[in-house]
């Protein structure tokens, strides 16, 4: 369906290439009310620089998924503000958020979330066809080559392995060249060999296209491909590392678990 919508005034201003792609200030998120209330985030501020792969690490219940949902505009913070590409998204309505997603955001899910009735290629092209944009055939060829599915482009998800399905999902996240890609436990549903391949692919897309990416994970091996690792515990950022080896990440995690 070709649905071209006018760009909102807020999005018209191109972000400065060097500024932070995502910035969050004093984010809190409270679920429920009264005695049963749970604070998932208790004041998180961060900036995601352009062209980097940022990993958000933390044990389950640390608030890392909540943080990503809020950064991506899927959930609303109880307080605090989020800006993507310079646009404050906390106050956007549904249709402005939709426009923002089309232009600026790509998603990679733990369970792939492919549409079973579409072929691999159609799944990859879906964001463009939803936005009513014509794909650039050269870019599509290049992308299919990168995700390694050129010869399987006509297969349906059910005919692909888990790793291949996640490759399709990565292609789908990259196809519109979004300002930022959010990946939610991208290897959480894959075996270790396949996980390695997927992580390699994600790393290479950051290197080749300068694709700003935020990845939530609890796997140290996954965090090890990131340019920057944020450690979350009990709703707060407790530590930050630069490029690290998996065993460094593990020791930080153990430290956190011990504290």
């Amino acid at each position, binding site marked *: *369906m070709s649905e071209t*919508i006018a760009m909102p005034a807020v999005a018209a201003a191109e972000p400065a290439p060097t500024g932070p792609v995502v910035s969050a200030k004093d984010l809190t998120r409270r679920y429920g009310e009264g005695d049963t209330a749970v604070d998932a985030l208790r004041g998180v501020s961060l900036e995601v620089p352009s062209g980097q792969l940022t990993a958000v690490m933390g044990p389950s219940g640390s608030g890392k998924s909540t943080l990503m949902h809020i950064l991506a505009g899927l959930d609303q913070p109880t307080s605090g503000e989020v800006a993507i590409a310079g646009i404050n998204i906390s106050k956007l309505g549904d249709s402005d958020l939709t426009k923002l*997603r089309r232009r600026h955001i790509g*998603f990679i*899910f733990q369970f792939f979330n492919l*549409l*079973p009735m579409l072929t691999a290629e159609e799944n990859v092209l879906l964001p463009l066809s939803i936005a009513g944009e014509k794909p650039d055939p050269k870019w599509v060829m290049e992308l299919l080559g990168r995700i390694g599915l050129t010869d399987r482009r006509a297969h349906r998800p059910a005919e692909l392995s888990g790793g291949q399905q996640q490759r399709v999902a990565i292609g*789908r996240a990259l196809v519109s060249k979004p300002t930022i890609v959010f990946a*939610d436990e991208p290897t959480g549903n894959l075996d270790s060999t396949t996980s390695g391949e997927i992580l390699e692919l994600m790393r290479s897309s950051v290197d080749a296209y300068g694709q700003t990416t935020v990845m939530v994970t609890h796997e140290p091996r996954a965090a090890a491909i990131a340019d920057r690792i944020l450690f979350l515990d009990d709703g707060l950022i407790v530590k930050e590392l630069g490029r690290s080896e998996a065993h460094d990440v593990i020791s930080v995690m153990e430290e956190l678990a011990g504290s």
Partner: protein
Amino acid sequence: MIRVALRGLAGRKLRASLTAFAIVLGVAMVSGTFVLTDTMNGAFDSIISQSYKNADVVVSGKTAFDTDTNGNAVQAPSFPETLLPKVRALPDVKAAAGSLTDNKTKLVGRDGKLVGGHGAPNLAFSVEPRSDQRFNPLVLTSGRWPSGAKEVAIDSGTAGNKHYKVGDTIGIQTRGPVQQFRVVGVVKLPGVSIGGATMSVFDIPTAQMLFHRQGRLDVIRVQAKSGVPTPKLLSEVRAILPSTVQARDVAAQEKRDKKTVNFTSFIQYFLLAFAGIALFVGSFVIANTLSITIAQRVREFATLRTLGATRRQILRAVVIEALVIGTLGSVTGLFLVLGLAKGLNALFKVLGFDLPTAATVFKERTVIVSLLVGIVITLLASLRPALRATRVPPIAAVREGAILPPGRFARLTPILSLITLVLGVLLLGYGVLGHGLSTANRLGSLGFGIVLLFFGVSANASRLVRPLASVLGWPATRIGGTAGVLARDNTMRNTKRTASTASALMIGLALVTFVAILGQGIRSSFESAVDDLLRSDYALTSTDTFTPLSVSDERALAKAPNVTAISGVRAGSARILGKTDNLTGVAPNMAQVIHLRWKQGSAAVPSQLGSDGAFVDHKYAKKNHLTIGSPINIETPSRDRFTVLVKGIFKLPNGGSPFGPVTISNANFDAHYPSPENEMVFVKVRGGVTDANTATLEHQVKGFADAKVQTASQFKTNFEKPLNKILILLYVLLLLSVIVSLFGIVNTLVLTVFERTREIGMLRAVGMTRRQTRSMIRHESVVTSLIGGALGMAVGFFLALLVTHALSSEGIVFAVPWLTLLGFVLATVVVGVIAAIFPARRAAGLNVLAALQYE
């Protein structure tokens, strides 16, 4: 996005076609109705235009009115045949022929029984055997035209069905006992089947004698010399006609004749009403099925939202799906139609309404209306589920087991449902009980009220599912064991889903229950009226109970030695006080066989009517401000006018009476009607009802194939037969909507099995057999349909109570046919069992391992 919608549909072919099926039957019924009635109209039109072949001007006797109270054409009065030579002598007349027609001349088969009947006409015509037949619409298929007394040509249908051929002898009965005629020819109307009607053809003198119209003609067909304009011929003919005879050009004559067959439009509305019900039920099924499929696709919609799809795009995707489903269903329905039109015709035939048919008429209008109706209904039904789908938030894409969020007005839903229900009840109450409403207002508020009532019950039903399921599911838990318990609990899991699935069935059951109770009410009030009125031992009616009998039958029966009193009730139509109505006549001894309660006058009134007296029922008297001595002006169809004076007013019993609003003496009746007929004859005999008396009476009317002697109690049941036939017709037509709701149950179960794949795999893994799995699904289906049945019967009871209360002044009582209702309960169980066959097989056929791994 269109592609996503279409691909999604293609990926769910089974579900899509199950959904489409919900409207297939309704659409087929709509187009079937059009095809059937168009075809009938075509047949009648072709019969009518054929009967004026080559004629430019038609001469016939003037009538006071064209149709009687039942909408049947009245017989025009005949005129002297001396008019024919005068017409022929006119300067511009090329040819003219006189003929007679009659609808009281019946064919009698070798078994002594009437051929045809069941209300289909017995047509008789005259021919001039030695003319060139230029005006004759009939063609010979074998033999020759009849010439001389005791010769007849019969229609090819009778010849075929009853195995008559040229040279055989066939019985003819008209105004007297059966006479034997020799079949000399077999005829037909080219290109048209005349349905259950029969035809007999005689030469003119024989027809005049049989029809009691010696020296007279009914019609003269006139053809103009070439080049003479019809108006010129018409004025020439008119100039020589007496005042009782008229001439019309052939177009006007055809138009007038077509007016008398307008009952096809009644059939059309009647059948369309049932198509509407089936479509209404279908819309419930579609809305429910779409709701379930949408609930199962929450993650898909959420993913699309994260990829940048707007709410509007989601709405459009769902609506496009509905559009495709609607189109698919409507086109299928249209294809089914030819079969269904035949089926409807067969149904009418079985129930004794055998109507003429010609080549099937498939008009563009049929296609357009059917497709439009099917598609629009599907779209409307999809609107709510589609709007719900737009409420799916993008975050549902990352949540496991995300459910469809409640609608924007979810908090108001319980209140709105109650308001809908109350509004429906109030509108119904207003429509039924309100005073001084116009018919349009009354029907409007009734129709609207019923629709609201159904919506209201359906919307509130989810709250009743738990209690109903625990009661109605009890047998399942007894019979099915663990499978039964699980089945019952499954129906309580998603009460909304169970409620809307059951609601579709509720509609059909509410209507059949209503019809059954109303029918029983009519039956029992009729029975009590007969018990109250009838004082005779026997009654004589025509074999089909309703067609009037020639008075010759009564005269023959009067000669039986055991008869102590015989009293015929004449009937005919007349214009009474300016309105076409039934006029009845009674013999002076009427009080011996029928007991009336007199409001004014006494039981002596029937014997004192004489040549200027009448009695009327109290309602008619009140409506027309009649009292003793009031004059009543009467005009017969042959434009014979006379006046009678009211001599008595009787209380019209609740269940009706054999009399029309105005009753005169038989002597007076016979003086004004050329061939008087009895609607029934009551007889008292020495010794009452005995086998010997019955045999004596039957022997007396043996020569009259159209008459039937019956005891008073047989008379009662015979009169109920047509009511029973109508009930069966209504049940069959309502069955259609029950079948639609059966599809609804199938849909829900298939989708539920699909949804619970993993759970079923688990149950199988822990030791549930295939048989138990099947039984679990079957019990769930039966409990669901029983819930629908219970709701439907409750609504049906309510509707019947309301309507019988409103009709209590008409004598309709509230009477419950318990046995019939028990039958409905069993039918509900059967619906549940049938609906479960396919889903149960699917559930039992699941591969345990694959089901467990199913996501």
